[in-house]
């Protein structure tokens, strides 16, 4: 069952790339496509790219070299879309807090530079396949992209947690799906690239990747289409001390 070109393999590859454009249509019809423009673009373009790779894989007339060129093109496109999506998550989460946005941007740039170096280092130490450079290169590009993506997403989660920023439900859903996908894919691609694993294990890991992506698409469906519980906050009780006195004390503190 866990074999390339099995029924499960076809289903796991095609289904999320059919579902994601359907989600994009729902977003368009609900009027939220503009709010999540990068996600909307990701949902459509990454699916088109994946379906193109799928077609190149199953069509007997497509030579192997062409398949890998299509795969490379799709990887580059997906990389650009994912980083645009991460930028959108950051803007939607921190954009309304002027005091944090600038600091966050500076820190995320720093984190990005560190991650690029770490990814380059990991790629440099990965075993190379001189005979099939186009294949190992694509695999390394996967590992590199997921390493940077995973690191930046963890940084965003950490930054938000440190400042107790409350996530808007839909933004959280997008970030959660993207993060789960990035973490699992990073682990599997690291094993595929560096583990020296037998072919059957590599195929199994590919199944893990496809199943994870399927789950992530369902997470996006849940968070973007199912409305959350409306939390009715009771009138917020203010802490029991006198603000006027506090303010006077602070005034004295600032201007003694």
């Amino acid at each position, binding site marked *: 069952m866990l074999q390339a070109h099995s029924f499960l393999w076809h289903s796991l590859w095609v289904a999320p790339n059919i579902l994601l454009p359907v989600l994009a249509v729902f977003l368009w019809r609900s009027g939220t496509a503009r709010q999540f423009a990068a996600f909307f673009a990701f949902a459509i373009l990454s699916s088109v790219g994946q379906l193109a790779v799928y077609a190149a894989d199953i069509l007997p007339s497509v030579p192997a070299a062409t398949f890998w060129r299509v795969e490379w093109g799709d990887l580059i496109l997906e990389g650009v879309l994912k980083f645009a999506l991460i930028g959108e998550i950051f803007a939607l989460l921190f954009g309304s807090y002027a005091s944090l946005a600038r600091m966050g941007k500076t820190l995320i740039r720093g984190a990005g530079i560190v991650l690029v170096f770490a990814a380059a280092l990991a790629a440099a130490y990965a075993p190379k396949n001189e005979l099939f450079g186009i294949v190992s290169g694509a695999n390394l590009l996967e590992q590199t992209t997921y390493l940077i993506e995973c690191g930046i997403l963890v940084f965003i989660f950490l930054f938000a947690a440190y400042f107790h920023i409350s996530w808007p439900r839909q933004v959280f859903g997008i970030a959660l799906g993207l993060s789960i996908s990035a973490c699992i894919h990073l682990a599997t691609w690291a094993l595929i690239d560096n583990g020296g694993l037998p072919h059957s294990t590599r195929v199994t890991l590919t199944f893990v990747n496809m199943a994870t992506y399927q789950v992530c698409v369902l997470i996006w469906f849940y968070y973007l289409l199912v409305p959350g519980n409306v939390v009715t906050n009771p009138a917020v009780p*203010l802490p029991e001390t006198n603000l006027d006195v506090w*303010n006077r004390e602070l005034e004295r503190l600032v201007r*003694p």
Partner: protein
Amino acid sequence: MTIAIILVVAAALALIFILRVTLSRSLQISAGTGLAQIQPIDVEAFRNLVDPEEADYLRMRLSASQFRRVQRWRLRATAAYVQVAGRNALVLVRMGQAAATASDAPTAEAARQLVDNALLLRRNATIALLRIYIALAWPNSGLAATVIVRGYEQLSGSAMLLGRLQNPAAPVRISATW
């Protein structure tokens, strides 16, 4: 294989962290905000600790080694105050975020302002803590705590406005001393 193990462990840790955040988020939604968590701060004591004149006085009166020792105690105490201020700011962030869902625009705007100022204070508290820890290594260097003090001032103004908007009749009560 070593790189594979490092990356797999890193990915697993990242996934565990993100899932923990997901779980705590759902718990937060059901639990609401914990305003009782605000801890009082003795502003008078804090003011003494960050007063540069006080430090100058001690520097003149004490020998260099005594001054360094005393200044380290003062810095540790200042750090404790700043940590509490940072934690209190987080409670106010939650309070402001809860109030931001209010239907009337002025309250929502005041809540937004409170959140922004509380975040600024949290950020300043973090930076101040870093500076305090650096100053612990070099106690003779001056420690400017003005960012924290300014944060207090802005935060108190925002909290006062929010309190008045939420309950115009009652005296605004948030904290006398924190």
